[in-house]
């Protein structure tokens, strides 16, 4: 009685094209569901506007230029905050990964900054740093900071000892070890943190805008809510989602480019 082993090869490749189709199909399904609910659930438009109402509102906001202006404002805050938060997190995270003492000294404070509800300290930030873009960038950076920091620590700590031995036997400098060993080795985990950070950064900027601002998509949300123009709220929220997805896509793109050596990214 012959018998063949169940084989475990590489999983079958799903072509790019078919992936795009499934994504498209699931989007269409979501839209249809929304349309059906808005049509038959009997909710007033200021609670749930129909897709076509939102589309019209979107077109209006787009053509009068306001959507672009506010998106640009938010995007600026997001990008600056993401940049600042990431740089701070990677630097501090590296120091923490390298020194238990430093970790014990600073980590309670870092955790503390994460536990303070931003809305509670936003006024302080405004007092200290003024009401302009800086305070929003700061809030954004604060939110981005922690996930990137933690993943930096985890990633750097997990660098296998034999690689360190190799670098030391070759008399690599501290800078070379960082650049040629620790950065590439920690990159998968670090990029995971950046994925989280990138999506959170959008929230960060919006929280800052919601707290008090006269521009940005968070401001548009406030305006829409104040005027019971729920379609405008939807337009702003969808634009925020699009921003977050774009940033997320950027990080995914970086992953595919930088981690081709990982098996998972070969497929």
């Amino acid at each position, binding site marked *: *009685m012959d*018998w063949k*082993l169940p084989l475990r090869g590489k999983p079958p490749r799903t072509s790019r094209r078919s992936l795009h189709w499934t994504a498209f199909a699931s989007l269409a399904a979501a839209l249809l569901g929304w349309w059906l609910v808005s049509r038959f659930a009997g909710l007033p438009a200021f609670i749930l506007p129909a897709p076509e109402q939102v589309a019209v509102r979107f077109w209006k906001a787009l053509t009068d230029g306001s959507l672009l202006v506010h998106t640009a404002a938010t995007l600026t805050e997001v990008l600056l905050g993401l940049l600042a938060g990431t740089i701070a997190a990677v630097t501090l995270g590296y120091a923490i990964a390298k020194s238990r003492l430093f970790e014990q000294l600073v980590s309670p404070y870092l955790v503390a900054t994460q536990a303070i509800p931003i809305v509670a300290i936003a006024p302080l930030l405004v007092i200290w740093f003024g009401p302009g873009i800086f305070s929003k960038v700061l809030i954004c950076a604060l939110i981005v900071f922690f996930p990137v920091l933690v993943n930096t620590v985890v990633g750097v700590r997990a660098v296998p000892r034999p690689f360190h031995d190799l670098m030391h036997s070759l008399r690599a400098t501290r800078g070379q070890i960082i650049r040629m060993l620790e950065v590439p080795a920690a990159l998968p985990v670090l990029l995971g943190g950046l994925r989280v950070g990138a999506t959170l950064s959008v929230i960060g900027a919006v929280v800052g805008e919601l707290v008090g601002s006269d521009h940005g998509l968070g401001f548009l949300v406030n305006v829409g809510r104040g005027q019971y123009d729920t379609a405008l709220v939807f337009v702003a929220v969808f634009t925020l989602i699009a921003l977050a997805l774009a940033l997320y896509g950027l990080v995914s793109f970086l992953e595919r480019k930088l981690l081709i050596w990982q098996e998972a990214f070969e497929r």
Partner: protein
Amino acid sequence: MTDPILIVHDISITFPDRNGSLDALDTVSFTVLPREFVCVLGPSGSGKSTLLRILAGLLEPTSGSFSFAGGRPKIGMVFQQSNLMPWRTALENITLPLELQGVQADEAHARSQELIDLVGLQGFESSWPRDLSGGMAQRVAIARALIHDPDILLLDEPFGSLDALTREHMWTELSHIWQRRQKTVLMVTHSIGESLILADRVLVLTQRPGKIKLDLEVDLPRPRADEMRYTAHFGELARRLKEAIG
């Protein structure tokens, strides 16, 4: 004559490669009888490890097929890199196959003791893999491949980084296990001497893509010992193998 336990038929495999593709094995066919000890020799990169991985069901051949008689066999495998799980102690790595079979912890411990003695790791049961020397890690991997009493052993250079003494000791033990427990063994090695001391048959693969170049019966009497190296027949077999590899 008995029926073969393993029939390998025209197996080829091609890996996708950055610049095109790479043929690693080319129409490899052979059969293995029950309780036969077969060694596989061949130059580096000739597809020896790939062949074992295919037989263990870890890779799908591009074409060709293989089958085991008597249903899916229990496999004991030693990989070329010792791949111990870093979160398990030496002992826990050895007992992994038993855990997977649902054997009780105390029975697993009892059975592991014998193997720890066999590979000479007394006192290192609770060491983490990172604290073991290269040879010790390899011995843990060997013990792990034997503990669950497998039907077939697939060994990929199991004695690669063992000192001469330990290696000879392991040869003897492996021969005993093989004879006592009626195992079938397929072992990759790069030592001609080792293959002649242990094997019933030696397969030699060619340079990439690996094809079977020589299928040599080793008709030396058993039990064999290191001294046999200096007999004429041993020398003749060694010469033929060397020629095939070279």
